[in-house]
C-alpha cells in the first residue's frame, strides 16, 4: 500500500493560501486511494505555478515546456498505454500557449487526465490576464481591462470531443479528490478544470467568489446528455460554476483503436525484423 508520504517530494513553495495546496493534496490522496505508487504513473507538468508541483510530487515525470504538456503526455501514453498519464497544467499554459494541443487531444480522445489549475491569471509571471480572465479584468498586461471574453474550457472540451469533462474547486479537497480518481479511471481524454483562487494576484475570483457561485451538480444530473451538458457549460456566462462531472461518454480512446498495441504496450513489444516484407515494393 502506498501512502501520501510516498508521493510527497519537496515541501511546496506556493504562496500561503494558494489553491494549489488543495490540488496537490487531492492529487496525492487520489493516487494513494487508487493504490498506485510513484512508479506506476507518469505525470507531465506544464510551466507555471501549477507546473512547479514537479518538485513536490514523486512520480515518473517530465517537467515539460510551457503549453506542451499535452503532446508530451500523449507520447508517453502511446509508448506505454498500460499506465495512467496525468497532466498538471495551468489555464494560460493549457488554454493559451497550448490551446491547439488541447482541442486536438479532445478530438483524439487520448487517454490522459488533464488537471488544469484555472486561476484566471498568469501567477508565475506576476499576474497578467489569462485566457480565462473575466472580460474587463485589469492586470499588468491589460491595464484598461481585458477586451476578450473568457475562454470557456468546458464548452471547448465538449465541442471538441472530450469524453470526460469535470469541474471542481480547490476549496473542496474531498470533491476534488473524488473527481480526480474518476478522471484517472476514465478511459479516454479527461479534463478536470479546477477553479483555483490565486490569493496573490487575483482579487476578484477569490474563495468567497467561488463559494457563492459554485454548486454541486445534483445526483439526478445525467452526465451522458450532451445538450444538457452544453447548457451547463454555458453557465460560465452568468458566473455560475457547476461542480462535478459535466459530461462523460464511453467513446473508445485513441490507444484502444491502434491494432499495433492490442496485444501489449509498444515499449514491451519485440523488435520487428520482417524487412523483406517492406522491401518488396522497391524492387
Amino acid at each position, binding site marked *: 500500500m*502506498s*501512502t501520501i*508520504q*510516498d508521493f510527497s*517530494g*519537496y515541501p511546496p513553495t506556493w504562496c500561503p493560501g494558494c489553491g494549489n495546496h488543495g490540488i496537490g493534496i487531492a492529487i496525492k490522496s487520489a493516487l494513494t486511494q487508487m493504490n498506485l*505508487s*510513484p*512508479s*506506476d504513473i*507518469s505525470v*507531465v507538468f506544464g*510551466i507555471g505555478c501549477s507546473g*512547479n508541483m*514537479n*518538485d513536490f510530487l*514523486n*512520480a*515518473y*515525470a*517530465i*517537467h*515539460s*515546456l510551457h503549453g*506542451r504538456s*499535452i*503532446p*508530451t*503526455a*500523449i*507520447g*508517453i*501514453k*502511446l*509508448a*506505454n498505454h498500460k*499506465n495512467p498519464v496525468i497532466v498538471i497544467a495551468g489555464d494560460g499554459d493549457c488554454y493559451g500557449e497550448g490551446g*491547439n*494541443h488541447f482541442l*486536438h487531444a479532445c478530438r483524439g480522445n487520448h487517454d490522459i487526465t488533464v488537471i488544469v489549475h484555472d486561476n484566471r491569471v498568469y501567477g508565475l509571471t506576476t499576474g497578467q490576464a489569462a485566457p480565462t480572465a473575466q472580460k474587463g479584468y485589469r492586470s499588468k498586461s491589460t491595464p484598461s481591462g481585458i477586451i476578450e471574453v473568457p475562454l470557456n474550457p468546458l464548452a471547448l472540451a465538449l465541442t471538441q470531443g472530450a469524453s470526460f469533462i469535470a469541474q471542481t474547486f480547490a476549496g473542496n479537497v474531498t470533491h476534488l479528490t473524488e473527481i480526480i480518481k474518476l478522471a484517472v479511471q476514465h478511459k479516454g481524454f479527461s479534463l478536470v478544470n479546477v477553479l483555483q483562487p490565486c490569493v496573490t494576484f487575483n482579487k476578484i475570483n477569490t474563495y468567497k467568489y467561488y463559494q457563492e457561485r459554485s454548486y454541486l451538480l445534483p445526483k439526478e444530473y445525467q452526465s451522458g446528455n450532451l445538450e444538457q451538458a452544453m447548457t451547463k457549460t454555458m453557465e460560465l456566462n452568468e458566473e455560475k460554476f457547476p461542480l462535478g462531472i459535466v459530461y462523460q461518454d464511453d467513446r473508445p480512446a485513441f490507444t484502444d483503436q*491502434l*491494432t*499495433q*498495441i492490442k496485444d501489449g504496450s*509498444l*515499449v514491451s*513489444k519485440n*523488435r*520487428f525484423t*520482417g*524487412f523483406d*516484407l*517492406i*522491401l518488396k515494393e*522497391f*524492387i
Partner: protein
Amino acid sequence: MTTGLVFSKIASRLGYHIYDFVQYPSLIRGGHNTYDVIFSDEIQSGLKWEIDCLVCLNKETFDQHKNRLAKDAIVIFDPVDIDETILTEVKNKVAVPMEKILTDLKGQAVMKNTIAMGASLAALGADLEELFKIIEEQFRKKGQEVIDFNKQLAKKGYDQVKNNYASIIKTVLQKKTTDEKIVITGNDAFSIGSVIADCRIYVAYPMTPSSSVLATLAAWQEKTGMIVRHAEDEISVINTAIGSSFAGVRSSVGTSGGGFALMVEAVSLAGITETPIVIFLSQRPGPATGMPTWTEQGDLLFTINSGHGEFPKIVLAPGDVEEMIELTGEAFNLADIYQTPVIIMSDMLLSESHQSLLKRRFDDIIKSYQINRGKLVNKISNDKAQISNQIQSSNIKTINFLRYQVTEDGISPRLIPGTPGYYYQANSYEHLEDGHTTEDSKERIKQVDKRNKKNTSYLTGHFQTPKIYGDIKAAEIVFVAWGSSKGVVLEAQKILGSQGKKTALIHFTYVYPLDKEKIKKIFIGNKRYVLVENNSDAQFGKLLQQQTGIEINEKILKYDGRPFWPEEIVNYLNK
C-alpha cells in the same frame, strides 16, 4: 506509381543502375512536370545534362529542354502537339500519335503516359515484358480488363516505333544478368532505416519534401507495429516524440525547414532533459514558404544552432540512399548513446530522387546493424551509487533514481519509466542529479559541464572523419562537399577524369560537431580546394572554418532551387 518511376524500375529490373530526378511546381494539377532518368552499367550518383531520349507529352517539354539534347538524341512526340517543322535540328524524330490512339481506343488522358512508355522502351531497344509485369502489379486490384487495356496502349506505342522507326532504335536497354536491386529515394531510405533501427514511434506533420516518409511509414504500420502519428502541428509532433522517447521507445520526427523552426524549442527540451530523439530534416529553399518543391542545402547553420541555450547535438548528412539507410540506423544509436537530439539532414534532391541499390548491399547493412541503446536500463541492481542521497526512512518504498548522475563521459544511466521501486523526473528546468529543480551555482555548472562532456565523448567515440573519393595526394583539385552534393561531385569527377584531370572529393556526412585535429590532417597543403554547396552562403564552409580554422576560398554555389548539373562543375573548372 508515376511513369518516371516505372521507367526507373524497368531499367533496374533489366540490370542497370539508375538515378532519377523529378521537377514539379507546388501544384496538385498542371504546371510543367519533368522526370529525368539516367540508367547506366555503373553506379549513377547524379544528374546528366545531355538528354539521349526526350519524351514530349506537350510542346513545352521540347521548348524547355531542346538545349539539353544530345547530337543524336531521339525525340518522341505527338504530331498533334508539335509540328515536325520545328524539329528540323533533331536527327531522330519519332512521331507517336498518342492523342489519336487514345481517341480511337477511348482511353483517358492520363493513359498517354502508358503509350509513351511503350514507345520509349521500343526506341531504346527493350521489350515490353517488364512493363507488362508492372502493369499487372499496379492494376491487380482493378481487374483484368484494366490490365489488358493498359497493355494494349503500351503495345500501340511500342508497335508504332518498331514498325515505323526501326532504323532509329538504339539497343541500349536490354536485359542483363545482374544482382537484384532495389530502387529507393532518400525518404524511402530513411523510412527503411528507421524500421531497421527499431524506431517505434514516428510523428510528423506533412511538409514537402519530407511528407512521403509519413505516408510510407503509415502504410507499413500494421506490418511493422510502429505507431505513426500525424499530429496537429510540428510543436505537438516533437513533444509527442519526446514523451514517447522518455517512456523508453525509439522515437523520431520528420519535417522541412519551416516545421523544424516550430520544433526548435523542444530540441532544446530534448537537450536539457537528455532525451534521445532523431529528427529527419529534409530541406527546401526558404526563407519562409520559399520554393516548396525545389531543393537547397540552406538550413545547415540554422540546424546546428537550433534550440536556445547550450547543449550538445549531433548532425548527420547522408550523401546518397545507401548512406541514408546506414546513418539513419546510426542516428538512433547515437541518440540513445548520447541522450541528445540527432538530426539527419536531407533535401528535396536526396529525398525525392530514386537511386538503385544492390539488394545484397542492403542485406549486408541489416546484418551488420547492431542496436545500441547506450546506458538505458530497465532493471536496477542494488548498486548503492544508483540510490539517491536522500535520507531513506523505512517508510519510503520508492527511490528517486539519479537520472542526471554526473559521470566521466557525461552520460547518465537512463531508467525506463514504469520500473517498479523507482521514480524520477526529466526536468526542463536546470536540475540536480536526482532531477529536482535547482538554481544553485555549483549544481548548474556541474550539469552544464556534464552535458558538454557528451560532445567530447562523441568526438572521441563515434565521430567519423569525411570519406575521401579519389587520391588526395595525387589530385590537382580537391572538392569539399557535404550531404546530397556528393553525387554531383562524383559525376563531375568521372567527366574530369576522362579529360585527364586528377581530382578528389572530401565528403562530410558527420557534419556537426567536427573534430578539428582529425580534419586538419586531411586538408594537406598546396592543393586547389573547391567547396561545392547547394546554397548561396557557403554555410558548410563557414562551419568548417569555425570548427577547424580551415578556410576554403574557392566556392561553387547554386541557389536557384535546382540541383547542380555535373557539367556545371566541370565547366567552372574548365573556364
